[in-house]
């Protein structure tokens, strides 16, 4: 996810420092980024030469101190409150005082992430949609201590980067996951209850509601293990029973049916992958 956000930033003309603890992760991301920019040129979405320029604006580092002079730091580490709090605490000691911190969390509270970092007034929620380099929408939220000026500056930056910000309150899952996590679980429970087969559910949702993708296709795409992780982040803070991981989901994950990436989920992709 972080790599996709970095592509958005570099494409928008900003100097972009990509930080990861693993150098091989950075190398992998850079290769994918180069391909993505080249493909954007081919499709006429980027001017000739702009791909090389955008790539040149991106530098990779495993040293957090390299972010010291950044105007904005966007964190996209895994959904773990303690990890995000620790990261912002460390960044606070390294970055210049005016640096804005943004969290790409999709489920956790911005107020809690900011808590104790030392600059709670300059922390905002900035949740990009997957894949970030293709989706324009960014959910933005303020923590309880976020200063209006900091939020406004972050909002203006998102717009300037060509994205479309929408403001939500600092609530679990904001809008997108508050809608999607329970809905996906409802779909899985319907399958478990024998209401319909995945293919019939997907057909009904696409033909009846005009959605581009059926929910089973979508869960297979995002990964069933990711859906479990979303439930585990979402359920304890909402106590919404619809946000709890359904037994079928847990069984499928235990069986290794993780979706497209594993070749099997609600659908079987093994033949497709072998073709």
């Amino acid at each position, binding site marked *: 996810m972080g790599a996709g956000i970095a592509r958005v930033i570099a494409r928008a003309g900003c100097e972009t420092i990509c930080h990861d603890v693993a150098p091989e992760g950075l190398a992998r991301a850079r290769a994918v980024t180069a391909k993505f920019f080249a493909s954007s040129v081919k499709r006429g979405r980027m001017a000739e030469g702009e791909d090389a320029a955008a790539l040149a604006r991106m530098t990779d580092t495993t040293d957090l101190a390299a972010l010291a002079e950044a105007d904005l730091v966007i964190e996209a580490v895994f959904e773990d409150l303690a990890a995000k709090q620790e990261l912002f605490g460390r960044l606070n000691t390294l970055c210049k005082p005016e640096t804005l911190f943004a969290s790409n969390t999709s489920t956790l509270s911005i107020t809690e992430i900011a808590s104790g970092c030392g600059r709670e007034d300059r922390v905002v929620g900035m949740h990009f*949609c997957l894949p970030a380099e293709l*989706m*324009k*929408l960014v*959910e933005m939220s303020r923590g309880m201590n976020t200063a209006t000026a900091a939020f406004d500056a972050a909002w203006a930056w998102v717009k300037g980067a060509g994205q*479309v910000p*929408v*403001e*939500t*309150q600092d*609530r679990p899952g*904001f*809008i*997108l996951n*508050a*809608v*999607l996590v*329970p*809905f996906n679980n*409802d*779909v899985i429970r*319907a399958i478990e*209850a*024998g*209401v*319909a*087969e995945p293919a*019939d*559910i997907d*057909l*009904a*949702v696409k*033909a*009846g*509601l*005009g*959605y*581009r*993708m059926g*929910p089973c296709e979508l869960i297979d795409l995002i990964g069933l293990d990711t859906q479990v992780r979303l439930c585990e982040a979402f359920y304890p803070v909402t106590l919404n029973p*619809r946000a709890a991981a359904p037994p079928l989901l847990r069984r499928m994950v235990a069986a290794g049916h993780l979706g497209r990436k594993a070749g099997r989920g609600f659908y079987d992709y093994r033949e497709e992958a072998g073709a």
Partner: protein
Amino acid sequence: MSDCEIVLHGESRSFPVRDGALAESRAGAPVLLHLGQVGEVAPEPRRAAVLIELDTECLSVHLGDYPGAERANTLGFARYRNGNDAPTNLVELVRPDGAEPEALAAARAFFESIGCQVAVCADRPGRIVDRLVRPKYNDALRFLDDGLATATAMDMTCRMGLGYPDGLIERTERGGLARHHEICAALQELTGNPAYAPARRAVVAMQRKARR
């Protein structure tokens, strides 16, 4: 032109206008279509399929939970509508336990011959779409009351972030909040699931409708 016999029991939600393939009814045709608010239906075991239009009720209201062999060719169906919006071309075909595969195939062939897409489901409350979307619409209406975001922001998130053709608020309001209430109330009664408890805005819409 599809070959069917049509028995009309009042206004049909699935086919409010009978045109095209449904313009003609032929007595004794292999597919018997009961449209409208269907009550008791006599068994017709010689037909390829007997199809009963459903609203919010389960098919077992018409057949009982153990329909028996003489009704093994009887299936339920509803053409999906977002509340009061025009019908889509999705037909949810309800297959009760013990339904004949031949009846299912005949029903599918019939609906496909008139340009519909068929999704098969068990005889459960809300079939597929309403079962899944009504809690989501309730969530959206409650989020609006709770000040999570404006209706515009929520709808934009659904369109741009989830790829929906329209937002949850605009869709629910366009389909009619009172109709949303009717569907949710039926689902809540049948399932006991609080996710179907109609959101305040839908309750208010129903109360206003009752006062008119």
